């Protein structure tokens, strides 16, 4: 796109946003309740939230770079970047939070049939269907491919039985994209990527209480769930390819999250570090925090330039989550007994302690630190075995 065209587009976007983004949607997000997730029975924190979603969806700008035929905006990468920059400039909130956009969509675009794309993608773009992801199982963990949830071929339908875990917002989702076993004699090559309605008879969910308190995670149970045959994405028994594609996508997203923004110093956020030992620990942490910020900047720059090693996200995920856990530990130490309070108003119902405990999951979810180190060892350092 020529610079002149860019300027024209930028001006158009700016005008449209000025005219269409409600003032309420330019205020900073205060908490989960301000996020719009859409779905069959959407909850809106205010009428303007719905207006904003509908207007953006009508332009295809909830998914600006998807093709227009699938409900997207059909924008080029350069145009998408301009749209995001202009939204950021006026503090516009994201109109829609959606695993459909971030996770299922890319899989459908890559592996879905034309019919599937035309059916599912516009629903996602308009926020009509809220999706959840059914990968993890209690017995599988890091060994994702050892999953046991079965889909038996019953001629005109699949019969699904089994259990998923760590299904985020399963209790609020309309549909699930799910890995199921369709061939028990193979490991990776017996897995299929299936879509189905969470309102199907036989689906139940149960929220998971974490050590930090309540969570969006659920256990999800399937008891003789009937799924139409055409709801497979990609080929039967080739779901692992789809999953791997998405995992790479997700890992890249997670590894870039929260990177390189603001001053990473922990010490600057603390009011009084009286203890010399603690001060030394915080000073040493700050070195690591700044250094990792530089690494994040480098990683993002290399990613943009196509220079990053494909396994580098594993290194970033490992280092970033371990650092974040350390930050939480030190913040707790600095917070002392005040930070131990669990449910007082003074402590914002134990925000410090809950954040600290929640941070422990960072190095487990999305591939444990051990999994990431193994990937780095084998794929970057080319160690044998």
């Amino acid at each position, binding site marked *: 796109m020529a610079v002149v065209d860019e300027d024209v587009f930028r001006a158009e976007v700016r005008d449209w946003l000025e005219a269409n983004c409600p003032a309420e949607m330019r205020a900073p997000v205060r908490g989960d309740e301000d996020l719009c997730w859409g779905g069959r029975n959407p909850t809106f924190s205010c009428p303007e939230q719905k207006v904003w979603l509908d207007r953006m969806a009508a332009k295809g700008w909830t998914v600006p770079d998807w093709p227009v035929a699938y409900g997207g905006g059909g924008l080029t990468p350069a145009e998408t970047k301009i749209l995001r920059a202009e939204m950021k400039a006026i503090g516009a909130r994201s109109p829609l939070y959606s695993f459909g956009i971030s996770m299922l969509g890319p899989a459908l675009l890559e592996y879905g049939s034309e019919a599937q794309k035309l059916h599912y993608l516009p629903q996602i773009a308009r926020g009509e269907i809220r999706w959840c992801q059914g990968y993890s199982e209690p017995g599988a963990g890091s060994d994702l491919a050892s999953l046991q949830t079965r889909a038996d071929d019953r001629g005109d339908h699949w019969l699904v039985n089994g259990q998923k875990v760590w299904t985020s917002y399963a209790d609020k989702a309309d549909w699930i994209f799910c890995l199921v076993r369709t061939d028990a004699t193979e490991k990776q090559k017996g897995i299929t990527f299936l879509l189905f309605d969470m309102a199907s008879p036989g689906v139940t969910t149960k929220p998971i209480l974490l050590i930090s308190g309540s969570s969006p995670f659920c256990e999800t149970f399937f008891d003789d769930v009937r799924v139409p045959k055409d709801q497979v994405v990609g080929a039967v028994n080739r779901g692992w390819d789809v999953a791997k594609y998405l995992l790479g996508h997700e890992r890249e997203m997670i590894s870039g999250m929260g990177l390189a923004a603001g001053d990473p110093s922990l010490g600057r956020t603390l009011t009084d570090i009286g203890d010399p030992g603690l001060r030394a620990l915080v000073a040493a942490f700050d070195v690591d925090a700044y250094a990792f910020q530089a690494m994040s900047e480098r990683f993002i720059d290399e990613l943009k330039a196509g220079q990053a090693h494909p396994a580098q996200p594993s290194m970033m995920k490992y280092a970033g989550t371990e650092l974040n*856990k350390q930050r939480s530990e030190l913040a707790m130490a600095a917070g002392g*007994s005040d930070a131990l*309070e669990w449910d007082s108003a003074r402590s914002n119902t134990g925000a410090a302690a809950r954040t600290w405990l929640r941070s422990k999951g960072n190095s487990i979810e999305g591939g444990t630190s051990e999994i990431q*180190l193994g990937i780095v060892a084998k794929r970057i350092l080319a160690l044998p075995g």
Partner: protein
Amino acid sequence: MPLYLTDDQIMLKDMVGPMLGEEGPRHLRRLRDGHDAAGWSRELWARFGEMGLAGVLVPETAGGSGLGHVEAGIVLEAIGRNLTPSPFLATAVAGVTVLAAADDAVRGRWLPDVVTGSATIGIAVDEGAKHRPAAIALRAERSGNGFRLTGSKTFVVQGGTADLLIVAARTAGAAGEEAGITLFAVPRASEGLDVESVRLADSGMAARLAFDGVAVDADAVIGEVDGGWGLLSRMLDAGRAGAAAELVGVGGAALDLTVDYLKTRRQFGREIGTFQALQFRAAHLYSELEIARAATLKAQQMLDAEHADAPKWVAVAKAKAGQAATLAVQEGVQMHGGIGMTDEYDIGLYMKRDRVLQEWFGDAAFQADRLAVMNGF
């Protein structure tokens, strides 16, 4: 004295361990899920009284068991292993250390009730978020025949249910000075004393106290006026050694849970305990915990021997036990993977208790600094 338990001490261990182990962490869960206001069981504490455990450090002549810090540590390690909420550390270890030095009047009033398990004690020292005993600023000013106390305290573990509060106050000098501190025995039900109980991450309760000219008699003073630093330090050291023992229990249980998990959980077609990286980490953790256990026993023996180096060893024990236990719960949660993050599994409860014990009576960095100061650098 060899650095291992005597036969009598092993007998005590074999009695207390199974007693608390029968219910284990379920006891804590029951109190927690029932939103118990005290956060500990009066019934169990009465049993501690009957068994002579509440008076473990009290001389037999005063109705106690006449045992020492090693024995108190055995009880605390069992408490730590089972996450049993108990007034034992604040009352029977720290509190009793001060009461033993009190005049007949205060001692006579409180010690018998403490020994039977019918009265508990809260330790009111900290005023800020971090343990910094020399920084005490709560003022006690002479008034008539006694004193009036004005100021605030925080992190008074089980202070809301305590019958008696041991309050460290400043009668002279300025915050930061060791001289000028006086200890007072203050009934919780005193006029002008506001007590706010807050629940902590480990589901136990601690109090924030506001003293608004609380009047106490002269005989509420324990030890010397202005010269309370030594007794305060002895009380804190008793508490530190006790917390170290409980931390060893917390860390030991976390290690055991984790090693059990490594032996049973299968991934990639084999027990995860066969993975070398996890084996090495478990072995390192074992090593750290064994060292922490040795340091803790050493500190307890030194306290029992009233050795001049006891404070050094106490600092070492609290620091090392804290580090080892923290490593144990961190490794425990990580090696458990996702389920380690769920409330359903116990490992997270150990992580919460470890954090509270870390802070109580000063964390590892505080203890290391204290050791350095005692060593002249």
